[in-house]
């Protein structure tokens, strides 16, 4: 293209270059020659090329892109079409809402809560409920359609029963009034507990545990007929129902990491610090009673040999260090 450079230099001689609208000139030309108008329109579209024809001349990737976006749009349409007529959402502020589901189950939605439930049970595999806030359920027995309540991180599965879901101080409280329900973590279905009639289960920091006496007051006392502690296993062991554990055991089993990061550091930010380079076994299961004060919990962890601590800058501050005896 050396030629191009020399031609470009000749452009210096062109003093004034104007670009005229060729389209209108071409129309004028056609008028003069007496060619029909439609022909001209055909031609102009041919030369300009419609955007679509340009796209389809490009490599197959463009075709794929268009196909993918069509599928996406169709998917959205399908979603909305499917979701809207079959499910509905109820939100309460200061009122209490009573919902009668199509299968005969009754839900009483408490104040400031939100509940999504199905209107139709025709082509579904379960009765899926999504709840935020608190509600009391009275589920009609239906062996084919399990009643599943998604409550944040917790999944409650029942066939037919009455139970209450509530939340207090970041702790999920599930209280079973009659029948039998299965409670599990949404992300980890193996972390599962079975609740017998009258039992209550708490959920916090990814762990289930059985309420201590103090929590009884949270749940309506009239409904706590026989509150027996459940078996306290590690989250991974399969649920061992029907064998009430020894009532002497105090506290619940947590992972050490959850206790320190999810509880002690989270709720006592200014009081508790972890010394740099502190090593502790994150996955050890520790048994503590989270209703105790943080000083007591720290002491418990120290006596169990999981960590050590020393006084911090202020009177009630502590710094967590590596366990003394291990090394």
């Amino acid at each position, binding site marked *: 293209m050396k030629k191009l450079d020399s031609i*470009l230099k000749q452009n210096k001689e*062109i003093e004034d270059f104007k670009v005229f609208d060729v389209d209108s000139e*071409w129309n004028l030309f056609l008028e003069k*020659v007496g060619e029909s108008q439609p022909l001209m329109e055909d*031609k102009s579209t041919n030369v300009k090329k419609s955007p679509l024809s340009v796209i389809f001349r490009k490599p197959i990737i463009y075709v794929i892109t268009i196909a993918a976006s069509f599928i996406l749009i169709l998917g959205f349409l399908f979603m909305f079409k499917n979701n809207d007529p079959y499910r509905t959402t109820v939100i309460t502020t200061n009122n209490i809402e009573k919902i009668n589901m199509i299968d005969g189950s009754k839900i009483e939605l408490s104040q400031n809560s939100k509940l999504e439930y199905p209107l139709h049970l025709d082509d579904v595999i379960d009765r899926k409920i999504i709840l935020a806030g608190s509600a009391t359920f009275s589920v009609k027995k239906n062996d084919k359609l399990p009643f599943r309540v998604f409550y944040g991180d917790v999944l409650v599965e029942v066939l037919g029963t009455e139970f209450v879901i509530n939340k207090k101080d970041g702790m999920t409280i599930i209280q079973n009034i009659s029948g039998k329900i299965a409670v599990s973590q949404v992300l980890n279905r193996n972390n599962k507990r079975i609740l017998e009639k009258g039992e209550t289960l708490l959920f916090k920091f990814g762990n289930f545990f059985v309420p201590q006496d103090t929590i009884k007051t949270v749940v309506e006392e009239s409904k706590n007929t026989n509150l027996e502690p459940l078996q306290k296993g590690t989250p991974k062991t399969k649920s061992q129902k029907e064998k009430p554990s020894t009532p002497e055991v105090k506290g619940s089993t947590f992972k050490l990491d959850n206790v320190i990061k999810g509880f002690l550091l989270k709720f006592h930010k200014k009081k508790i610090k972890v010394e740099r380079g502190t090593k502790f076994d994150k996955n050890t299961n520790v048994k503590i009673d989270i209703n105790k004060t943080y000083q007591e919990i720290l002491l418990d962890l120290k006596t169990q040999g999981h960590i050590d601590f020393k006084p911090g800058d202020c009177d009630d501050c502590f710094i967590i260090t590596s366990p003394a005896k291990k090394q």
Partner: protein
Amino acid sequence: MTKPFENIKDFETTYREYYNPLVNFVNKYINNFENSKEVVQFTFVKIWENKDKIEVHSSPKSYLFQVTKNSMIDYIRKNKNHLSNTELDTNDLNILDDNGKQLDPYIVRQAVENCLKDKKEKSREIFILNKFEGLTYEEIADYLRISKRSVEDNISKLLIHLKKELRNHPDFFD
């Protein structure tokens, strides 16, 4: 020996390709854009009306150039009185130009204008200074107070664009 103007579709392509270069070429001698447009339009109408008889021995470009040049000379002769101030530079036109090389700068210029159409004023200026005025990169960088690197970038980008524009041009750079 071909008959390149028989088909209206091909004719339109040729028309769109050469209309602006021809008008600007004629304007150089007539010095009036309206009249130049008339001359070029007249030329095309004449070619279309005689499309069955025309047999082109060289390329469509050189044929178009020759016919336009003749129309222009006719026009200047006819309007000699009105165009007293326009002097026909016969030296330019008498050169035997079989392949229409005189038209090349105008074709390139049209491509340049197309490329520069949506470019910023700055890159336009850089390009014109370098390619038309023949300034070096250093001189442009100094003149516009920008880095030499940015001058180079601007010009190389535009050149790629320009070559793409010209690649589809029939009987050009063959």
